[in-house]
């Protein structure tokens, strides 16, 4: 087990280097730092001196990968690639293009993200499992049929509609919750309810339908038939035999997104004005702050790889038949 984990972690290194190279090529080779500076300072009427100044302030005035002027190891270390890309491996995100410390921002902003993402995940899991169990219990009836139709219809609605519709209905017309904003004190829950409700509702369609197929797959297996043949009640069959076995794929599906919860939800956070990492990313994209986008790409890749590793480990815990080699 330990050896497996270590090997997987080592395997993550070339992938992260690949991600790094990809972002490096996208941000520094396809367009030179000069282009970026011109974009920020306005395309026309910009002097060379202003461009040099902009690049110098942000450390973009070094050579890309090989520094002729430096001495010894400086050939490689005093370059943009080393400064901006390789440092990410030490989780040293450096300064954003507007001069803030990205690492500090991330550590501050991940808590609001988690405050939204964790309840959305937990409540969503509960709602989806209950709803899909209901459909599986009434399988083959009209309730099941129209339930699936409802799921497909809910899947077909744009996520933006849930957010805008929820804001208008619950926030504006019924006046139940504040439309947007965030607070850290005891009143924080007021601001959290609306985004969490919308986050859960918008995922019911896809989630419930997926879980329903998982349940139906288990229901048709031999051990379920023998459980019924023993004379167990349908409720007991469903909750003990079917649910526990179907939980394996459900839980592993949840584990893979666990680390990514830190990244928050792009849409929910920016619509509700939550100062989390999702809105941080969107703001960076809108302000064209490349340093932040680069940092978030790297962070996202790290968390995704971590999620895959956790999934594999959780398989062995949830299902003893799986052995990692």
């Amino acid at each position, binding site marked *: 087990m330990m050896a497996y984990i270590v090997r997987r972690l080592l395997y993550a290194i*070339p*992938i992260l280097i*690949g*991600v790094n190279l*990809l*972002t490096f090529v*996208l*941000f520094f080779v*396809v*367009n030179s730092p000069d*282009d*970026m500076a*011109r*974009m920020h300072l306005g*395309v026309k009427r910009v002097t060379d001196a202003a461009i040099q100044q902009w690049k110098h302030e942000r450390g973009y005035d070094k050579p890309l990968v090989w520094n002729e002027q430096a001495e010894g190891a400086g050939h490689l270390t005093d370059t943009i690639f080393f400064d901006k890309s390789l440092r990410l491996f030490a989780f040293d995100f450096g300064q954003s293009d507007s001069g803030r410390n990205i690492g500090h921002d991330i550590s501050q902003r991940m808590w609001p993200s988690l405050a939204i993402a964790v309840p959305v995940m937990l409540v969503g899991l509960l709602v989806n499992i209950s709803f899909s169990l209901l459909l599986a219990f009434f399988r083959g009836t009209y309730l099941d049929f129209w339930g699936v139709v409802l799921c*497909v*219809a809910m*899947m*077909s*609605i*744009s*996520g*933006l*509609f849930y957010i*805008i519709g929820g*804001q*208008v209905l619950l926030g*504006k017309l019924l006046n139940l919750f504040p439309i947007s904003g965030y607070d850290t004190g005891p009143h924080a829950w007021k601001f959290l309810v609306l985004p969490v409700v919308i986050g859960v509702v918008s995922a019911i369609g*896809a*989630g419930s339908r*997926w879980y329903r*197929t998982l349940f139906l797959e288990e229901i048709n297996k031999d051990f379920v038939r023998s459980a019924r043949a023993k004379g167990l009640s349908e409720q007991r069959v469903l909750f003990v035999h079917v649910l526990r076995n179907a939980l394996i794929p459900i839980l592993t*599906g949840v584990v893979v997104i666990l680390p*990514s919860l830190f*990244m928050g939800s*792009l*849409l929910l956070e*920016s619509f509700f004005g939550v100062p989390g990492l999702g809105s941080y*990313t*969107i703001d960076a*994209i*809108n302000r*064209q702050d*490349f340093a932040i*986008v*680069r940092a*978030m*790409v790297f962070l*996202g*890749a790290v968390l*995704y*790889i971590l999620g895959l590793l956790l999934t594999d480990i959780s398989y062995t815990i949830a299902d003893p038949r799986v052995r990692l080699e």
Partner: protein
Amino acid sequence: MMGFQPVILATDALIYLLVILALAFAWYTRRHAHLRAPWRRVAASRTAMGALVVIAVYVVIGLLDTLHFRPASGEDAQGHARYASEVQSVLDLLATPLVAHREKTYSAPFATHLYTRETIELPGGGQVRDFPRLKWGGAHLGDPARRAGDIAWRSAAGVALGAAAWLLWMALALRRHPGGWRAWWADPGRAPMRTAAWVWLVVLILAGLVLTLAGVYHILGTDKVGEDVFYQSLKSIRTGLVIGTLTTLVMLPAAILLGIMAGYFRGWVDDVIQYLYTTLSSVPGVLLIAAAVLMMQIYMNNHQDEFNSLTERADLRLLFLCVILGVTSWTSLCRLLRGETLKLRQLEYVQAAQAFGVGHFTTLMRHILPNVMHIVLIVVVLDFSGLVLAEAVLSYINIGVDPNTNSWGNMINSARLELAREPVVWWSLAAAFVFMFVLVLAANLFADVVRDAFDPRLRERS
């Protein structure tokens, strides 16, 4: 006689290619019984046939909007025709009244008055602040109070027109049916076709309503600059379809080639390809798209003179967005194909081919590729609706299509700021959501049936 000059934009060319490919595929399928069988299962589904009618209507509108041309605007000194610089489509031509009926700013659906108060000069001198009459919406009414009666009368005419067109269509279609329409109506095997016919009736009635109402009212209101929202929604159909189909078209060659190569050759080829797609899929999709689109924006800003017109620039941006979305979404198909090929290469017929000394290329093309095509088809159909929805989200974050391109995402993006107004300006949002919802719902329903018909075991990836 007005001349015109056909224009083929980059996405147009790819759409034509897609249509040709689809026709060739259909022709090939018709001639092979084993390929026809799953489609017959699709055709036996009432949901699929109903959804197909809806999709077909969208596709026809999208194709009409793809036939681009530049109208002649006069003649130069030598008598050669000169063409307007603005590119139009056949849809624009058909919807000329909608384009021409431009108001000043917002107006509600079926409104006769503008949404905002203005200072109006009274004929007898003096001023009053009131809602002015619209220039076009309900302009044929002498007295705006007669609006309700007029709408009811026109609606009834539209419904009658649609129903009459439907009856005519059915009469022509069933003319040669043995036993006449009674037999057709009673035949249980024709149930899917009857569903399609009912959906077609709804479509025709809606078309009838549009014909009688859209010419004199703004049936979905107007937006901030007074453009008809119904027209915008129609124009957005092409953008949605392009994103949903061309994205998969541009990613298919790479995904298929790499997927079956990884599964077939194993060894270092497999390692390299797996490394490639693991790396790409570990970058969060939105961020990769954002990074690429930001870089493209910089490039376009710094090389503005390379584009002939705004239309061309917006079109290239749309194509680029498809490519980027393709880069982020090919990995899952590649992984599926690799897994399937790993299974196939162990089968007897592939081993027999290898024992006979058939080359790798021929084995891949003749024995592996045809047997994974159903997975390709399923993934293409399943991905479509997700891509249409993704366009709206990306446009909201400003990394979607060009702001000048008509798209549902842009409609939502520009309308959402107006929700704070009192009373709410809801029609732009509602129109975009409804148009999107109908297309995505039809596509989802159709995709489910296609998946079940071709490979029920291939569960969707959550």
